[in-house]
């Protein structure tokens, strides 16, 4: 069995909407190693959430998902029927979503919602499930868990609800935890708490964690490997150090230089990336970043560059025509190839 817990090859997801087809994900290869903390970063509409929802089959009916290979823990997800897929979710794959206000059912107590998956997936008795639920709430740092079990979601604050979501996601001991913007709706001080908790959980349960976010700061403080997405494609992927200290794609470079830094005293002018992301109803033929790239070449507009390693075996992949030996690198900020 390979070291990959999740393997995605050439995933393409389209949505048919009034007026045309939105090509949300346009052929990406991705893997998650056992026990690793992988971050997928990108702006809204880049396809990062759709990628994961496609794998989980949680998309609406107007979506079409195609892939050469989708495998979880060595099992081919493309051949799995709907029922088996559903059974896997919440058991072997845990999920946390962005909005802690809507991801819990207001009609049921917190205890009910933690115990439900335990009863379904682990066939636990009511008593066992309750014990486990109390244990989980305690683990995610909710004080007096036994009383809290009987309360309803509206009695919890946003941060507390997200803790409950983590407790639910981890209760069945999943092999993979997918967290889609888990801290975006939270305040900074609460965000710090939740990120800390997620790191804790990852160590305790040694589950692979896939964190989807738009926030490079969140990535830097939690992940060991990063995938950068743009326009439905992967632009760059590699170790967190590679991405932050040796970025090789103009988009990654642009992202890093457009964020302001709380630790920075100087009034340096921010260098934004000009323009707006491409309209995926009518995706550009070449590299999706061409229109906003300062170093775009003719080939960039004409053909899509493949994701290739900067140094063979390094695991640092870049999809950019500037990697071609014929491209002139002066002034691009892109370092050695």
């Amino acid at each position, binding site marked *: 069995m390979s070291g990959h817990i999740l393997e995605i090859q*050439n995933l*393409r997801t389209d949505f048919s909407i*009034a*007026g045309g087809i939105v*090509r949300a994900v*346009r*052929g990406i290869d991705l893997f998650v190693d056992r026990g690793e903390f992988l971050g997928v970063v990108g702006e809204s509409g880049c396809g990062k959430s759709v990628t994961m929802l496609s794998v989980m089959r949680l998309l609406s009916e107007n979506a079409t998902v195609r892939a050469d290979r989708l495998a979880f823990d060595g099992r081919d997800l493309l051949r799995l029927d709907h029922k088996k897929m559903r059974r896997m979710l919440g058991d072997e794959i845990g999920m946390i979503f962005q909005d802690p206000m809507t991801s819990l059912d207001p009609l049921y107590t917190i205890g009910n919602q933690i115990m439900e998956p335990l009863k379904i997936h682990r066939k636990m008795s009511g008593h066992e499930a309750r014990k486990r639920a109390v244990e989980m709430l305690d683990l995610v740092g909710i004080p007096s868990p036994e009383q809290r079990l009987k309360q309803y979601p509206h009695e919890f604050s946003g941060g507390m609800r997200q803790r409950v979501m983590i407790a639910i996601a981890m209760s069945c001991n999943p092999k993979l935890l997918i967290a889609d913007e888990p801290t975006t709706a939270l305040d900074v001080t609460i965000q710090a708490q939740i990120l800390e908790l997620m790191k804790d959980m990852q160590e305790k349960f040694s589950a692979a964690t896939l964190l989807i976010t738009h926030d490079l700061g969140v990535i830097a403080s939690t992940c060991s490997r990063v995938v950068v997405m743009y326009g439905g494609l992967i632009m760059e992927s590699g170790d967190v150090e590679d991405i932050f200290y040796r970025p090789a794609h103009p988009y990654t470079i642009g992202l890093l230089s457009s964020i302001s830094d709380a630790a920075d005293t100087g009034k340096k002018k921010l260098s934004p990336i*000009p*323009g*707006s992301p491409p*309209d995926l*109803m*009518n*995706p*550009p*033929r070449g590299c999706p970043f*061409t*229109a*906003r*790239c300062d*170093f*775009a*070449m*003719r*080939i*960039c*507009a*004409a*053909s*899509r*560059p*493949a994701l290739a390693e900067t140094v063979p075996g390094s695991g640092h992949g870049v999809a950019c*025509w500037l990697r*071609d030996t*014929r*491209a*002139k690198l002066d002034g691009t900020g892109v370092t050695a190839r």
Partner: protein
Amino acid sequence: MTVKKMTDLPRDEAGYLTEGEIACLPPESFERLPDHEKQTDVINRPSVSYWQNARAKLWADPLAMAGFAVIALMIALAVFGPVIRPYAYDEQNYSVINHTPDANHWFGTDKFGRDLFVRVAYGARISLTVGIAAAAINMVIGVIYGGISGFVGGRADMLMMRIVDILMAVPSLLYIILIMVFLGAHMHSIIIAICFTYWLGTARIVRAQILSIKNQDFVLAAKVIGESDLKILLRHLIPNSMGPIIVTVTFLIPQAIFYEAFLSFIGIGIAVPVASWGTLANDSLSNMNTYPHLVLFPALAISVTIFAFNFIGDGLRDALDPRLKR
């Protein structure tokens, strides 16, 4: 091996160049792309307003289109029906009593020998007028009342909505019978009677709409610019609540038509010899077993029209639904 022209390079489906193709790329491929060739901030989609978008959706809805076709046919019947046949709606002819449909009398004749086609066509005038007029008046009253109530808010809103509650608590049939008795059995009294109670629902819907939009940022933005309350109501709040209002009003038309038919049927609506679909059905009821065609045609007219308006309403609801947007 041939080098593909740039325009021939694969477009979307996993379109990567092969190693060989890359090796053969012409040198100019690696020249900088001039800024003016970059398609930044360009919107490729054609510009469509909310109403244009709604119209396109409506056009694509076959049921709604069928509804429109039927209504157009009914209007044509109402306008030209009485004219194209050589009979008046109250013209009695005792030589052709209770005839079944034939070439002279398309829908047959009634017990006084009056031509049923002309009478149904004449009834269409009354029914459509009542339906459309009642709905239009409802819309105006409902939008003004609900708009003010929702926008002003506070105590005024409280008071205005309690009045609506009280009026709604009394069975509407009671008012309608009272008004009909008081004003006499005319078309305009039916319209007034229906309007008297129907605007309440419209007012509630408008108020709910206004309330939900009132606190949106674009209304605050209008205040920040210095727009007056009246202008905000007319330029922002009402246009933005128009979708649901139109849907509600469209569904009011068949209700009003039905109500008119119902009132005429129970004998307090339009007075004889004027024909409405309700009176026609009522007239023929006594000998329905012997002459079923007399009740068939007016009943068919009523149901087809109501169906058509409901289809239009459904289509409008789908087309104007803000949730389908974005």
